[in-house]
């Protein structure tokens, strides 16, 4: 088994994976290797398919994740006394994150045609603005 894995992993990145027909359970080393190659493929594929708009969205997404993490770390360190304020800021990060991801899914070229037939990119952006405005209104109301 261990020999087999060394052979399979480089080939697997091409998507061919010709040899691996071991019906028995794969060892942990195999799994880890496969996992690693999976992540590599995905990452390289991701950077290839990035358009400027998507890049903008993704930078915003990273920024939101950072904000959320900072929020959370702060709470862990200091305590959560005005709990609603913490929740408001944290959920605004999370909410904006999922709204952005939704927008990203909707305006993405490969998905747009396949799943969101009835929603044009402009419509998606309008929806995004509508939902974001409501989200921010509620957040401001909640923070008090």
């Amino acid at each position, binding site marked *: 088994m261990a020999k087999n894995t060394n052979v399979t992993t480089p080939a*697997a990145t091409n*998507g*061919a*994976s010709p040899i*691996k027909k071991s019906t028995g359970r*794969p060892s942990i080393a*195999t*799994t880890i290797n*496969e*996992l690693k*190659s*999976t992540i590599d*493929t*995905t990452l390289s*594929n*991701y950077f290839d398919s990035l358009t400027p708009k998507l890049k903008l969205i993704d930078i915003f997404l990273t920024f939101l994740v950072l904000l959320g993490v900072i929020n959370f770390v702060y709470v862990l360190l200091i305590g959560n006394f005005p*709990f*609603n304020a913490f*929740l*408001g800021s944290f*959920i605004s990060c*999370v*909410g904006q994150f*999922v*709204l952005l*991801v*939704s*927008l990203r*899914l*909707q305006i993405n070229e*490969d*998905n747009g045609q396949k*799943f*969101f037939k*009835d*929603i044009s990119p402009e419509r*998606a952006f*309008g*929806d*995004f603005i*509508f*939902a974001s405005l*409501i*989200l921010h209104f*509620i*957040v401001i*109301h*909640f923070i008090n």
Partner: protein
Amino acid sequence: MSKPTTSKPQLKVLGIDVESIRVLLKVIIFISIAGAAISSRLFSVIRFESIIHEFDPWFNFRATKYLVTHSFYEFLNWFDDRTWYPLGRVTGGTLYPGLMVTSGAIWHFLKNWLSLPVDIRNICVLLAPVFSGLTAICTYFLTKEMKDSSAGLLAAIFMGIAPGYISRSVAGSYDNEAIAITLLMATFYFWIKSMKLGSVFYATLTALFYFYMVSAWGGYVFITNLIPLHVFVLIFMGRYNPKLYTAYTTWYALGTLASMQIPFVGFLPIRSNDHMAALGVFGLLQLVALGDYVKSKVPSKQFKSFLVVSIVLVVALGIAGLVGLTAMGWIAPWTGRFYSLWDTNYAKIHIPIIASVSEHQPTAWPAFFFDTSMLIWLFPAGVYLCFQELKNEHVFIIIYSVLCSYFAGVMVRLMLTLTPVICVAAAIALSKLFDVYLDVVDLFTEDASARPSKSKKSKRFPIAALASKALVLLSFTFYLFYFVLHCTWVTSNAYSSPSVVLASRNPDGSQHIIDDYREAYYWLRMNTPEDAKVMAWWDYGYQIGGMADRTTLVDNNTWNNTHIATVGKAMSSPEEVSYEILKQHDVDYILVIFGGLLGYSGDDINKFLWMVRIAEGIWPEEIKERDFFTERGEYKMDKDASPTMRNSLMYKMSYYRFTELFGGRDGVDRVRNQQIPANDPPQLNIVEEAFTSENWIVRIYKVKDLDNVGRSLNQATAFEESFVKGSASKRNRAIKRPRLEVRE
């Protein structure tokens, strides 16, 4: 039915476009449905008068009155010092304000914009019928998403008149459910719509209606568990797509944040276990989305191992997190009311106050037939048809029906949430049937194409096919007519009686109205000081607050069990013990309901055992349920009644002077069919009778003050009675030294 028109736009009937005829028909149908829905709910208003019916609505009515006489801000910060007497109730933080705000808004709209100043009472009474019309329309849209608009119309008709829903929404039943079912249907409609389209806009609308629903009814928990379950099942069926992500995450993020704005809900959506399913699915959906992305990039072989590893990790982490957080007390465990849905014996053993409500009992079979007539047997057929055409939205109906059937089986009250899905599923089944059997067009088109090739004789009229179709159609039309009859009959006879006014029939058939409740409440309102405190069992708390406008100790909002147990103890203890409690709580009047003279079974003696049980839960040494039974374990009021029973304040207050009505013979309690002994009438020392209504249903007692010269009230009464009876006991007086303690 809609198929041929799209292909032939020039199809005309009587020179009018078919499409516009269809619109016209729809409008007419909707108007008639709304008319039927509203008018079938008006029985009680027409028969009696326009008043609020049950117990709970009286509080909602009172809160609404407060809202329209004060400002909205005062309403949100309302501290009600006229209930739960020593404690008070922070009303703004302990009620769902949606109902009051809705009717307050309607009141303002009518008054300021349409210049129709309508009394707020009439708006409250007629709110439920109006909203039932809207429910029918929402059900139409929901069913239209499931099938086509013809099924939608059928569902709207069913929903308009189904007794299962009417029971909670007759005119005068100003309860949260009145608008909650409308909002439930609207939320579900927008959810289905957003899930189908993947639209963020509709998901936002779902969240907004969800917020409105949260503000209106505690049953919003049902939505928070149903939508995640739907998504969860779809993921497990391998039907994940990006639309699901956009719809669900938008709903969850906005809806959760919005629901936390209601003060009564507060941080519950992140703290309580009822809401954890939604959070879990939200997290799961993020992972699935990521996995979906990875899957689209790498070959499936590799993806498999990725999947296995991540699933194992996620499940382990998720379960460990949930269990850990619950164990650490960060997430509240299931609330008792909710928990009793799963463990059906839980309430009976641990929380008698939940089990004591008659709505929380299991449902019997006839109730299903009674409440939904023929829909109950079309319901499984509709669910089956949903299975046959298993689109994403049909999964929703299936889950909804399975889950809700279970809940409705456990608790009578939850018939209400089952009724919409029964209507939808039955409409799907019936419209499928009508689609097949009403379709006579192909019968004739086939005939027409065949005819010219054959001989001129038009004997080939498809009589057999037509007849069989007609037979099926006629029988189902008959069922539909019968359904209307059944619904009207049930509504008229079972669900349209106000509990405030009792109606009975005179021997000649004319109606005799027993209006003791209001008689007594108005007596309280007019003849007692404005700050008098009235003690009654919690059932009547809202009505006393609403009609008599006096301060109560406990009411139907059973948020403080100990306080209710205190009242229960005062009612079930001997006089001396009760007097302590009464004085500690500044009670001025005690109100008991007694149906023994009239045969009104819902009186306080029949509820007495619950008082005992609830009091026993807090003071097991002082109150024991066993003491209230006879030696043979019977619950009796007659001469066999146990001494504890005879000495309890409730017994004495109920039967005080009762036998006097029977002129020396034993009194007959018509509810319990027992003889109340005339030779040993109950003596009251600590209270005096203040008011007894015409049919003795409501009896009000005034608590006596402490004795002027410091005797105990028993001694004082005994002393006074010795004068009344003459100097019989005076004659032989005993002079001896009393055994007293040393004075300090």
